[in-house]
């Protein structure tokens, strides 16, 4: 059912498994930071992290003998780490949408740009 890791591959296994999570976090963090405020120059670095993660997954799969049915775990890791930041980003944007709309309204009120606001009405001659 499982083929244990060979003695000489212990370090590769630990290191690559840690790298999967750390570069996963690097990719997720840079992805979010790049989308935030449209910092497009950070996006290649985010995907560079993902590429490193993919290499780590490959190294882990080789060292831990993730063959046969275990290939599913490898594919799952690659897909999960690729898509999770996208999905969470959309959820973040959706859950905060009402808040952003309200903030824009308040900002417009303060600048007197919102013709429907009470402040704007007072300013209108």
């Amino acid at each position, binding site marked *: 059912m499982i083929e*244990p890791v060979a*003695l000489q591959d212990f370090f590769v296994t630990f290191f690559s498994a840690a790298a999967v999570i750390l570069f996963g976090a690097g990719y997720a963090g840079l992805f979010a930071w790049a989308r935030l405020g449209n910092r497009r120059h950070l996006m290649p670095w985010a995907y560079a992290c993902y590429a490193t993660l993919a290499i780590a997954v490959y190294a882990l799969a080789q060292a831990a003998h993730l063959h046969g049915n275990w290939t599913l775990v490898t594919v799952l890791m690659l897909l999960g780490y690729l898509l999770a930041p996208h999905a*969470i980003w959309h*959820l973040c944007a959706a859950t905060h949408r009402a808040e952003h709309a309200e903030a824009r309204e308040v900002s417009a009120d303060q600048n007197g740009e919102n013709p429907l606001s009470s402040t704007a009405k007072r300013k209108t001659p």
Partner: protein
Amino acid sequence: MIYSVAALPHRIAGAFDALDSPHLNGGQQLAVRYLAVAVVLFLAQVLFGMLSGIQFVAPGFLHGVLDFNVNRMVHINAMVVWLLYGFIGSIYWFLEDESGTEIAGLKWGNVAFYVLTAAVTVVVLVYLLIQTGPGKDASIWFINEGREYIEAPRWADIGIVAVMLVFFYNVAGTFMKGRWSGIAGVLTLDLVALAGLYVAGMFYLTNITADQYWWWWVIHLWVEATWEVLVGCIMAWSLMHLLGARRKIVQTWLYIEVALMFGSGILGLGHHYFWIGTPDYWFSIGGFFSALEPIPLVAMVVHSVYDAGVHNFKSRNHPALAWIIAHTFGNFLGAGVWGFMHTLPQINLYTHGTQWSASHGHLAFFGAYATINIAFFYLAVQKWRGDVWMGGDLPGNGWKWKWALALLNLGVMGMTVALLIAGYEQSFVERAVGGSTWEGYFAAQNQVWFKQAMHWRLLFGLVTTAGVVLLVWDLLTIGKGESRKAPTLTKAA
């Protein structure tokens, strides 16, 4: 003499009454009692951890007086119980605020607190006074049940479940009397699971595989499912209170977190079934869901960056916020990175039960649970003192909380790395080369890397102890004599 003993309960109750504050509601008064005992047990955890750490480098230390197995047991039990006290205290703290009404059956809640605290005291005294003896049915009922991490004798088990039922009644009854919310619903359902799962550890089976099968329900499903959800509820309320976050947003994220945690965490249980004699399919289930378990933690990185970038956070309690940030990183590193490094069965064959597990356990428990409880201690102290200022510009620039934070994080991280080195050596020498034999075990224990790692662990244990002492000192003094009031944040919608 008899009079003194008879008067003891009143004296103890009187000592707890001294913790009352006019700034708190009934639930918060009870919460302060729970949080105070949590701090005492935290100190006990560190003390017995230090004794165990010393025994690793000087095995003769206290031999025959306070043996390693007892120190280790009290160290871990104290941790489990202080974290539970912290969670229960936190929930009593916000129960009236969240429900908009007084706590249902608060009197019973107070009785349950004294019963639980007395039971914990008796259990620990029995652990310390009766360290060896025959294993009989009577010892399961009155001395020690023998299951690692949940060694409490059966009479105490029954007491714990009774106290949990009172706690459940307090929570569910209060929400039924007042108003329900998303946090209230998740919390109430989680408490059903919390009390129910404990029952899985209360019956004894002669087949060790079957016994371990159910035992893991308590250990894994408590820690990696119900506790995570409890922390989610506490965090949701804290973020509204601390940062003025909107209820709609924190509740939506609470639902998402519960779905992600339960989705990956429940069957992640499989990674504990690898080597206990269960069928082979647990390799696939455990491996598959263990690979999934870090994804929610990585996904949370996106949310943290989003919130940090979009909002200009104005916190009304800097120490609490700092500890919540420590929680985010600690949970990610301890549970995510340290967990996944040795969880796949292909490598877990060698690492299971070595100091690898201890390394992961130290960082994960500290990062995921101790930090959030400490954050809540600071929230409670602030209100206890009369909702005083705890932002920047504290006396002495807040050096005590900052140093406590630094020392505790450095100490725990240092112990984690030292145990990681010891675990690496153990899995290599004892398991892979020595073939898990008795000779292999001793070869690994006497290997220079293992010995050096244990010295480093002791050193960082001292750093941790210094951090805890400083933390307690700070909790006792922060906000004392402060006349400035905490700023009012935008009311959470």
